[in-house]
């Protein structure tokens, strides 16, 4: 019977017009719509692509919706310092390099301090919609502190979405409590489903009053993670799976992980590059284990995308981050400053901001579609990557020299798709070019054909041109996706007229270290 169904599906495809196929190709994956078998896209899915109850949950969540991450901010409170497993990419003396910043969090908070901080931040930043507990240890190795914080926040700020991150070891024991507290987003870090692979990543776990090591430890961890995932999905809680890509250890295996979590109903898979600088003192850092290159990471994400939605906008932020993804305003909200603040929770102002964003999002979607329609009839097989300088809002509104990161879009006749971001050190410091110069930025953008900016000086523009990257100011303050498509159309025209020659770009470097405001 299932074979018959497949045949039927196939023949149905045959009757689809080329136009429909092209449109559906343009809208599949993370560009716009979740296709059949996908639970809608963590990246750019809109209200029409997802069941209303799921859209309600993700539309304002910067981590679960690529679209939302341009507009909405999150905060983490560092109330959970304890952990119950050891990872080779983490050194607790310097905190957890992959799940938060590679250094100790600025300060640990009590649940009471954390709740006050949440209200202070929410009053100052109306786009802050999500509170996450992501360590610096494991949220569920500190259950009392984690749940107390959620309880206090719900009392004063009931509109803030709650989410937590865990390694999954204790997850099955707390699923009921998570559901009861209306936490509707949980992230589980799953780096393997094969304990033999796990033994190379986890030296030990602490479980049932015992320290387990080797394959036995990873077997327990993996079983608990997958059980926890199934239990959450059964309760309608959205689950994001984070995986650290460790070349030579679990890179190929992550395709198996992807299948395992997809089949158990995970909503989104986030494959992140290993951070392993020697100075963090992690086991991987000391053994010289390298992280992936930008194109290695993208190739793995692309390989998994047919199976489920991939998150590509993760900034691997620290456990006390505050602000839009890619920015960190935590220094404005130290305990000392928060205690001195006069805070009033202004629900009306927050809702007004959020309504404004809804309208803006619609405008962005319309503009993108209008631009995409202009590509009608184009058949070039060319695919390029374009870097964007933005400080949020879905608009090209950052100067080249002031950019902490560039967002990377892949564009072809099928449309524009967000594929990642590249952290860079500021090129411009106090009006002068930085000491390290433009070289690291050229490496970070080496796989891009162009960079679209609000403004750029002559000097860096020439350096970029020398490296084969075109710097473009024409789209300053325009919507990102619309501009990327418009640039691509113009690029094809110039290639068509032989004004320029299309050159395939190489690989790029991923800057080590999670985001910290320098």
């Amino acid at each position, binding site marked *: 019977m299932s074979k018959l169904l497949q045949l039927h599906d196939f023949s149905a495809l045959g009757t689809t017009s080329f136009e429909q196929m092209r449109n559906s190709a343009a809208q599949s994956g993370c560009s716009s719509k979740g296709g059949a078998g996908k639970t809608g896209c963590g990246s750019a899915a809109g209200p029409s692509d997802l069941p209303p109850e799921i859209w309600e949950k993700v539309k304002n969540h910067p981590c679960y919706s690529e679209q939302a991450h341009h507009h909405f901010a999150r905060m983490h409170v560092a109330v959970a310092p304890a952990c119950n497993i050891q990872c080779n990419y983490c050194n607790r003396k310097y905190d957890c390099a992959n799940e938060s910043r590679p250094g100790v969090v600025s300060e640990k908070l009590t649940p009471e301090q954390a709740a006050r901080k949440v209200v202070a931040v929410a009053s100052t930043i109306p786009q802050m919609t999500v509170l996450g507990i992501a360590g610096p240890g494991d949220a569920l190795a500190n259950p009392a502190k984690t749940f107390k914080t959620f309880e206090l926040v719900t009392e004063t700020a009931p509109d803030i979405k709650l989410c937590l991150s865990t390694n999954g070891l204790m997850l099955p024991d707390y699923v009921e409590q998570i559901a009861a507290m209306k936490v509707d987003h949980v992230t589980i870090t799953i780096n393997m489903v094969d304990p033999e692979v796990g033994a190379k990543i986890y030296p030990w776990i602490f479980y049932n*009053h015992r320290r387990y090591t080797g394959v036995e430890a990873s077997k327990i961890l993996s079983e608990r993670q997958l059980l926890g995932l199934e239990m959450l999905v059964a309760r309608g809680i959205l689950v994001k799976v984070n995986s650290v890509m460790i070349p030579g250890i679990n890179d190929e295996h992550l395709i198996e992980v992807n299948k395992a979590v997809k089949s158990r109903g995970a909503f989104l898979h986030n494959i992140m590059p290993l951070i392993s600088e020697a100075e963090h003192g992690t086991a991987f850092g000391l053994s010289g284990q390298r992280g992936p290159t930008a194109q290695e990471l993208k190739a793995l994400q692309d390989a998994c995308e047919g199976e489920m939605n991939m998150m590509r906008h993760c900034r691997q932020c620290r456990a006390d981050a505050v602000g839009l993804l890619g920015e960190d305003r935590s220094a404005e909200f130290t305990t000392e400053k928060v205690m001195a603040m006069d805070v009033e929770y202004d629900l009306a102002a927050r809702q007004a901001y959020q309504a404004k964003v809804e309208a803006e999002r619609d405008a962005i979607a319309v503009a993108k579609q209008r631009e995409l329609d202009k590509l009608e009839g184009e058949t070039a097989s060319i695919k390029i990557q374009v870097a964007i300088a933005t400080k949020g809002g879905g608009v090209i509104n950052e100067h080249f020299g002031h950019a902490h990161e560039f967002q990377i879009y892949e564009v072809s006749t099928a449309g524009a798709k967000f594929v990642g971001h590249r952290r860079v050190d500021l090129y411009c410091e106090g009006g002068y070019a930085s000491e390290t110069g433009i070289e690291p930025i050229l490496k970070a953008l080496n796989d891009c054909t162009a960079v679209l900016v609000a403004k750029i000086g002559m000097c860096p523009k020439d350096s970029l041109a020398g490296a084969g990257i075109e710097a473009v100011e024409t789209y300053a303050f325009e919507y990102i996706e619309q501009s990327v498509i418009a640039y691509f159309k113009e690029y094809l025209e110039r290639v068509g007229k032989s004004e320029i020659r299309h050159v395939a770009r190489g690989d790029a470097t991923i800057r080590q270290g999670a985001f910290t405001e320098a």
Partner: protein
Amino acid sequence: MAYKIVASQCTGCSACEPQCPNVAIFEKAGTFVIDPSKCSECVGHFDEPQCVAVCPVDGTCVIDPTVPRYQAA
């Protein structure tokens, strides 16, 4: 009679505190300390000392040589 926590190694993560069957561990100036009069080295409770097993930094929870080893009654 007891374990002690090497303060210079302790990250203050608090993982040990709730694991101690004798409630002998408490926070002091950002790191954790063990009250030697309460520590039983987990004898009679668990096969391995819990603070040692859960501590993320090896060599942080160690036998205090200045105190005689614990003897089960």
